[in-house]
């Protein structure tokens, strides 16, 4: 009677592709050639990436002088010699807008992740699906949307708030997805223990689950920030560019590193292009720092578990 587990064997059968194809006899030279081709492919892929980083570092460092990071472009034009003016206003503007964007996107992203993982509601699948769809929204479309809704509709001016709203649209899917991954690894026993003590779901989520993955959530936020720190297109349409230090969120446009780079490229003179490379270097260093930070924090969670 028990011979029926042949069924299992048959179920496995179609998953073995090699039964259908024949192997060629192992030939050492062809194998070596393919391994060689793999290495060549690897080198070809690495080449542009190395070139990008190297070029940005080499050309970008030309723009640096002692006050480059702390001055703005209020009294200088892009064409001026490289020992005057700087990128300070763009750094401050980027930091302000990215921080604001994080303040909007991170709580919403975590809430969305909590809904998918903790509440597992009726729409959990749909919410995941739409989050995925949102991660594919082209950045310029996010910019156009905020332009048509906020800049035309409400403020009638380019300003930092509009810029950070556009960035938060692009940040949200990254934060949600990372937070979801993080929440998924919370052991069920923790939740069960909390429920067994009579805690409500609210209590369990807020004082057991979320604190347990605090550093993972920070990682999610930092990854989201790194994702949008270099976005150019939406800022061209919402916060534009401004030559001086500014902390005004509503009335004035605000500079940012990407629009600083883009604007200087548009000017086109040698000094302006050097400034663009300098801005690129600052931007890349900022993003590398953020990514490293995210990995360090994320790594700590993993080890402590």
């Amino acid at each position, binding site marked *: 009677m028990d011979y029926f587990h042949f069924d299992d064997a048959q179920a496995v059968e179609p*998953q*073995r*592709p*090699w039964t259908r194809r024949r192997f*060629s006899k*192992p*030939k050492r030279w*062809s*194998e070596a050639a*393919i*391994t060689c081709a*793999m*290495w060549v*492919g*690897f080198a070809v*892929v690495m080449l542009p*990436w190395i*070139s*990008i980083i190297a070029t*940005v570092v080499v050309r970008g460092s030309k723009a640096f002088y002692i006050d480059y990071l702390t001055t703005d472009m209020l009294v200088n034009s892009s064409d001026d010699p490289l020992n005057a003016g700087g990128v300070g206003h763009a750094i401050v503007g980027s930091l302000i807008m990215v921080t604001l964007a994080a303040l909007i996107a991170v709580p919403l992203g975590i*809430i*969305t992740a909590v*809904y*998918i993982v*903790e509440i597992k509601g009726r729409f959990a699948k*749909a*919410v995941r699906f*739409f989050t995925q*769809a*949102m991660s*594919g*929204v*082209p*950045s*310029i*479309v*996010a910019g*156009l*949307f905020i332009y*048509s809704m906020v800049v035309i509709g409400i403020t009638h001016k380019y300003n930092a708030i509009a810029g950070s709203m556009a960035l938060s649209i692009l940040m*949200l*899917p990254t934060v*949600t997805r990372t937070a979801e991954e993080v929440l998924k690894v919370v052991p069920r026993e923790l939740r069960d223990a909390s429920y067994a003590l009579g805690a*409500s779901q*609210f209590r369990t989520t807020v004082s057991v689950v979320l604190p347990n993955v605090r550093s993972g959530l920070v990682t999610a936020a930092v990854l989201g920030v*790194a994702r949008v720190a*270099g*976005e*150019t*297109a939406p800022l061209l*349409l919402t916060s534009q560019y401004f030559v001086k230090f500014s902390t005004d969120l509503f009335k004035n446009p605000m500079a940012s590193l*990407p629009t600083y*780079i883009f604007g200087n*490229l548009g000017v086109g003179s040698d000094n302006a292009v050097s400034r663009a490379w300098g801005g*690129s270097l600052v*931007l890349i260093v900022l*993003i*590398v720092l953020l*990514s490293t930070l995210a*990995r360090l924090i994320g790594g700590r969670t993993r080890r402590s578990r």
Partner: protein
Amino acid sequence: MEIIAPDKRKIAVRRGIVDKAFRGVVTAGSMISLIVLALIAAFLLYRGFEVFRDFGLKFFTSSKWDAGADDGSIAPSFGVAPMLVGSVVVATIAISIAVPFAVVMALFLCFYAPRFLRRPMTSVLDLVAAVPSVIYGIWGYAILMPHAKGWAETINHWLGWIWIFKVPVPIFERSPFIAGVLLAIMILPIVTSVAREVYSQAPQDQIDAAYGLGGTRWGAMRTVVLPFGKSGLVGGAMLGLGRALGETVAVYLVLNLVFKVNFQILASAGGSVASLIASRFGEAGPYELKALMAAGLVLFIITLIVNFIASSIVNRAGKSQR
């Protein structure tokens, strides 16, 4: 003997008022992505509606983009056909260059690379995926273009008898080919990550069995890993396609936008809906702005469809593997 089973116990969940409120708030908050997507579509449609009404299907088939004269002597006329075609052409070039390299790269990282190289390469992939598009753009303009121009000349010299490699005038800068190469480099990290993810889930027992039958490493790749990762790779390629279609700044910097449908990829004339918006936005009057909104809506819907297909393929691939 008859077995009398007890009735199934019913488990009733009774939630307190706090929990009900909590669940309500979180559920409402989680709808944000749906709301934002709907709002984007609604606003762009609302602003661009007039253009769709005025031009109808001509908006998609016409090659003319003319804001008209302020005094009304020249009527405005808008059509995105060259830009749509250009977007697709550039993205196709990017995908067809990026996917083979991504496969090689993913196989290399999963099976061929020495162990000390694998972990740092993960970080490198993450890093280059995070490099902003404006930096790809400035690099593409300053470094890639002079090289790629030479490649384009070589292709034109040897394969010029094929129609798509012909050029009307021998200018090879700012062509769809160069934009495609730059986009290929840009989307390579994401396609590679997806492919690597899928290949790393290839069943080890089957790979071992392939070796056990006396197969070579490439034999195992060809018969186990590649067929296994096919659908995941398609999904990754679609994700890359979505990104390539929506890319603005990098393409803007290396592509000459020309309002003429052009399939000759080496010629210095191309199009891209996203770059069109960026390039016309600054000087657009109110009516042209509406046309740009309409173009944005078209771009939004196209990328949405591509991403829907991509994510459903990736999700399905992910499920069947387990």
